[in-house]
């Protein structure tokens, strides 16, 4: 049974007529072309589908859209346009934090979440914050370094 769902996507109001039990990841990718959001495991264990919901990191594969009415959702399509998003992109490039790239949008969402929470995140805080984001290529160190670099560059 379709229903009108209103929410904010990357700062803009969105209104869609859809099944409230549809997964947020499917709405974002299939109806709203937010294809940065990737499906990995579909069980909330890999973090590839991470988005920000009211400023907090969540797995969009586990969220029915009927639960996000009135909420603010952010994906890499929005984050990359911001000053901190640009810093994250640069830091990922400088530190070599991207290999195959599949986990990268989720990692960037995680990085943005960390930058909003901490001025000077420690490597341990970054590791805990990104503990739900799996990367099978880098071995993580470059990603941790990239987040630290992006945070440091934001302090100036």
């Amino acid at each position, binding site marked *: *049974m379709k229903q009108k769902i209103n929410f904010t996507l990357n700062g803009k109001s969105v209104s869609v007529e859809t*099944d*409230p*039990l*549809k*997964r947020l990841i*499917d709405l974002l990718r299939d109806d709203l072309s937010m294809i940065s959001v990737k499906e990995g495991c*579909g*069980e*909330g*264990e890999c*973090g590839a589908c*991470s988005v920000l*919901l009211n400023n*907090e*990191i*969540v*797995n969009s*594969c*586990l*969220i*029915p859209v*009927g*639960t996000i*009415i009135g909420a603010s959702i952010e994906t890499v399509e929005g984050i990359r346009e911001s000053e901190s998003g640009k810093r994250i992109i640069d830091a990922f490039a400088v530190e070599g934090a991207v290999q195959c790239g599949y986990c990268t949008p989720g990692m960037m969402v995680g990085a943005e*979440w960390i930058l909003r929470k901490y001025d000077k995140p420690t490597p341990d805080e970054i590791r*805990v*914050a990104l*503990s*739900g*984001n799996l990367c099978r290529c880098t071995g993580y160190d470059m990603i941790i370094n990239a987040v630290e670099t992006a945070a440091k560059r934001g302090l100036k």
Partner: protein
Amino acid sequence: MSVSYRPESLDELLSLMSEKDLIPFAGGTDLMVQNAGVDGPDFSKDVVFLAHLKELKEIKREGNNLIIGSAATLSDIENHDDVPELLKKAVSEIAAPALRNRGTMGGNICNASPAGDSIPPLYVLDASFRLLSCKGERVLKAEGFFKGPGKTDRQKDEILKDVIVPLKEWNIRKYRKVGTRAANALTKCSITAAAKTKNGIIDDLSIAFGAVGPVIIRDKNIENKLIGLSVHDVKGKIDSIISDYSTVIVPIDDQRSTAVYRKKVCLNLLREFLKEHFSREM
């Protein structure tokens, strides 16, 4: 195809629950996985969303109790100053931040997985659950609520309103879970233990084991035998305590681990706890 409801108030939720046979849906972190279908979620019944209801989200002190709303997220609990350390530690080790931002206390309880990591601390801390329906409320001890894997005493028209945690003073605490990795791994087994000692005498003691039985294992008979003993007495009894517990810890083999491994590790965790805290004079 299932229908979903989104009540605007607790009263509306309770009347929906009394009229229909619904799946209460809080964070959904377990439900969305258990009911995944080829073309999106495929629920066996209609669902009712409840995590948006403010009445269910509050965490507050009430006298000597901490009241945790069933829709408080695991992150809310992890970051709340009044939450007892044991519960905080167990919750902070569940899954990963994105999951803890959605998963709720009530969901972890009502899902009733033997590997639900917030549950052993609730046994140890003597928590009770307040269940609410149109007909009224009832309060059950954690031990009385769980009936088996996925089975609880919650009736069809009831919702879990909140968790009542007595704020006792414990000077000895231990929580340790064993899994394949730190984040996002379901628990193979865990120990949660708390004790209060005064002048070298055990005033109070509570020990629970998770993921090693259909429900959490806590044996008050064994605990009662130890309460009143001196710390020194316990030191000489470690082997007999472990042998008492070895008769009540009866795990199973499953995809995550084996019964033999689980039992051995649990008893080792118990020995570690006893040696850490009762092998010297206090």
